[in-house]
């Protein structure tokens, strides 16, 4: 359906351009560089015009346009110095630099049409954390092709690990190790957040293995249901865990959640020698920046692991299973072990991200861990492009931005223009609460992407081929040996 529509649109476009004197053959006859410049300039020009007419103009928009043109127009990919292909590193490095410097020019960003102002620092932290979670889910869904509808269980597990080992939850104990900013009278486990992140990752990976061992033999959709079941059981344990089985043991503090959770920090010694912040929470308005940069480091780590694992023996085994489970088994890929590794790896990053986010929020509440969040993260992976690291990060950033700020901004724009007393013309006469319909919008994204572009916005070429050739992955659940 999608391809036919795209073809008819492009045919109409060429017909219109042909009438203006630019036929397709003449356009293709132009030098490659010229075409790239014209196309990029056209898009950037449209963007600038939109900002001028519908947004709030600042001169920085020109700088943004210039940066985009410099990054997009030259074929950086093909640059090599003395035979070494350094070109492919240029764009990612530049993007990393731009993102890292974001806190410094956030104040001078122009306002975009409909979407409003650029995202705030707290949203950027959320975007980074959810990028990490989406990359974690991408191991399971994107690489190994197993649908996991209970990823929120890993997020919850990570958050509660931070709650258990970096707060005063278990006040019958008094254990301290490297924690910063903990008052003298506080009891409970207070370990260094960096250690807790690692512990959370490992504990969550163990949980992932425990869940995976009995269930990964199941066929695709049954596995989806089982993971969904685990995703629903975990938050219920969190909700009812303040008096576990009537023993009076308070594991999770029930609906009250665990709060406050310690913030990260490097302690006075490192601060003195390396000037890294001793305690993030005492940084005041700069705390969000420190959290953002730390999250960025974690995302980079995840990207590194993702790309290295994808090209490893294990990663190729995942992709083989995704494409044809029976054939992979026949070629000697150990199905259970390979799938369990995918599950454990995905769980590990979910756990680390969950623990970090809990430390950032200073709390872990059971109400954060609904099925909706599993679908939210799944939506990120699918929208961006299953199996493609950049696609998944784009999906995560875009959807988390919509969740935190975007939908509210779009809603106020819509209401301001078409709502009651709207500046353009009034279509509806009650204030439309756009963020209320968030999950309907995400559902629509899922349906539309699956129908028209199942490989996602930024696909991995291999995944796209699978979708268009119609791979029938109907593995038998007893094919696993």
């Amino acid at each position, binding site marked *: 359906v999608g391809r036919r529509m795209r073809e008819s649109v492009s045919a109409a476009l060429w017909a219109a351009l042909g009438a203006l004197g630019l036929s397709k053959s003449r356009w293709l006859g132009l030098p490659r560089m010229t075409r790239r410049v014209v196309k990029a300039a056209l898009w950037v020009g449209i963007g600038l015009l939109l900002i001028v007419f519908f947004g709030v103009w600042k001169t920085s928009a020109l700088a943004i346009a210039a940066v985009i043109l410099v990054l997009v127009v030259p074929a950086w990919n093909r640059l090599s110095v003395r035979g070494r292909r350094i070109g492919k590193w240029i764009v990612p490095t530049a993007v990393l630099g731009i993102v890292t410097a974001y806190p410094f020019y956030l104040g001078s960003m122009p306002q975009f049409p409909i979407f409003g102002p650029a995202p705030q620092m707290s949203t950027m932290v959320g975007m980074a954390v959810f990028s990490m979670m989406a990359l974690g889910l991408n191991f399971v869904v994107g690489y190994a092709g197993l649908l996991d509808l209970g990823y929120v269980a890993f997020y919850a597990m990570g958050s509660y690990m931070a709650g258990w080992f970096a707060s005063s939850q278990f006040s019958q104990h008094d254990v301290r190790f490297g924690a910063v900013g903990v008052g003298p009278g506080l009891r409970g486990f207070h370990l260094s957040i960096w250690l807790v992140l690692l512990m959370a990752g490992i504990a969550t990976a163990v949980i992932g293995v425990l869940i995976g061992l009995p*269930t990964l033999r199941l066929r695709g959709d049954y596995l989806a249901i089982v993971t*969904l079941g685990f995703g629903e*059981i975990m938050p219920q344990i969190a909700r009812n865990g303040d008096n576990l089985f009537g023993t009076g043991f308070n594991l999770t503090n029930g609906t009250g959640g665990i709060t406050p959770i310690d913030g990260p920090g490097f302690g006075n010694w490192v601060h003195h020698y390396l000037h890294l912040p001793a305690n993030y929470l005492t940084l005041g308005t700069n705390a969000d920046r420190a959290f953002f940069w730390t999250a960025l480091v974690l995302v980079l780590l995840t990207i590194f692991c993702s790309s290295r694992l994808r090209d490893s023996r294990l990663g190729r085994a995942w992709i083989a299973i995704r494409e044809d489970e029976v054939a992979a088994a026949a070629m000697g890929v150990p199905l259970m072990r390979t799938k369990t590794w995918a599950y454990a790896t995905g769980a590990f990053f979910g756990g680390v991200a969950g623990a970090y986010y809990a430390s950032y929020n200073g709390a872990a509440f059971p109400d954060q861990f609904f099925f909706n969040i599993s679908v939210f993260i799944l939506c990120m992976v699918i929208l961006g492009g299953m199996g493609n690291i950049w696609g998944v990060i784009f999906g995560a950033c875009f959807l988390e931005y919509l969740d935190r700020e975007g939908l509210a901004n779009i809603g106020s724009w819509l209401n301001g223009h078409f709502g009651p007393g709207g500046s353009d013309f009034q279509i509806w006469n009650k204030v439309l609460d756009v963020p*209320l319909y968030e*999950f309907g919008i995400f559902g629509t994204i899922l349906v539309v992407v699956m129908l028209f572009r199942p490989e996602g916005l930024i696909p991995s070429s291999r995944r796209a081929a699978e979708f268009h050739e119609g791979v*029938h992955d109907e593995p038998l659940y007893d094919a696993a040996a």
Partner: protein
Amino acid sequence: MPLMAGLFVALLFAWLAVNFVKGPAYFFTISFIGLTNGAVYALVALGYTLVYGILELINFAHGDVFMLGGMFSATMILSVFNLKQHASTGSLAVAIVVSLFVAMAACGLLNVAIERVAYRPLRGAPRLAPLITAIGMSFILQDVALAWKGPGYTAIPSVLPTGNVFSISGVHYTWEKLIVVVITVPVLLLLLWLVQRTRQGKAMRATAQDRDAAAMMGIDVNRTISFTFLIAGGLAGAGGLVYALYFGQLRYDTGFSLGLIAFTAAVLGGIGNLPGAVLGALVIGFIQAFNEGLPWHTPGSDWTQSIVFSILILILVFRPEGLLGEQTPEGA
């Protein structure tokens, strides 16, 4: 493993027996609640099983179709018939029958539309693709209800008579529970007749067994699948009406949690198997009622969902073919 399962079942029965001895009358009253729950779940579970039998697709949106069925029924009862408590029997019967047909028709057509839009274009795609659109459709339907009825609960006055049908030495069976069964059983019998005795039912069974072979025998596969979705939607609509009448309140996300329970019931009975779905629904209904109602050593309603999902996981892991064995609709 059979030893463990046997031990587990033995413990379960011991627990039930102790509870029974402690208060036989109460036990029976709770059982009737379980039976009524099971009847509602059966209507929804059959929809999952029908669709799974023919397309091998877990129709996530089914629970939300059921919820919209409840919303349609609520609208009919509240706005069209304007029923109040203690309505006369005649007007109550007319209102229920008309609402039943409206809800069934509306949900059936809605389900057909969903299949047309979200599942049919993906029939050749990898298996997970329609599952993902099903999740998307589920969220869309929830938001339709959210936009229509708002985020709060829609309350339906208890129009059903609440007197006792019989009351023997402390065992009460109320009219409202009987009415739920009275609505459910004919619908189930009609469905069974339809699938087993009619030409269309034969086409459904043939399509479920082998789609390509059925097409070669001259069966219009697309039409048969649409028909299956129509019936499944109709059952969900009936379930919605019964739920609205009996439980008296529903919300945009009612369908999601109940749908998962009903799906568990379908898996428990053996997905694709019609009598299995009814059996599974009754078992789940009883388990829920016992868990929430019995006095001696019960985890309580806080844990119902976890128990149901644990059953789901255990069944899928250890006996994926369900209680009634590997029986597909063609054997039903």
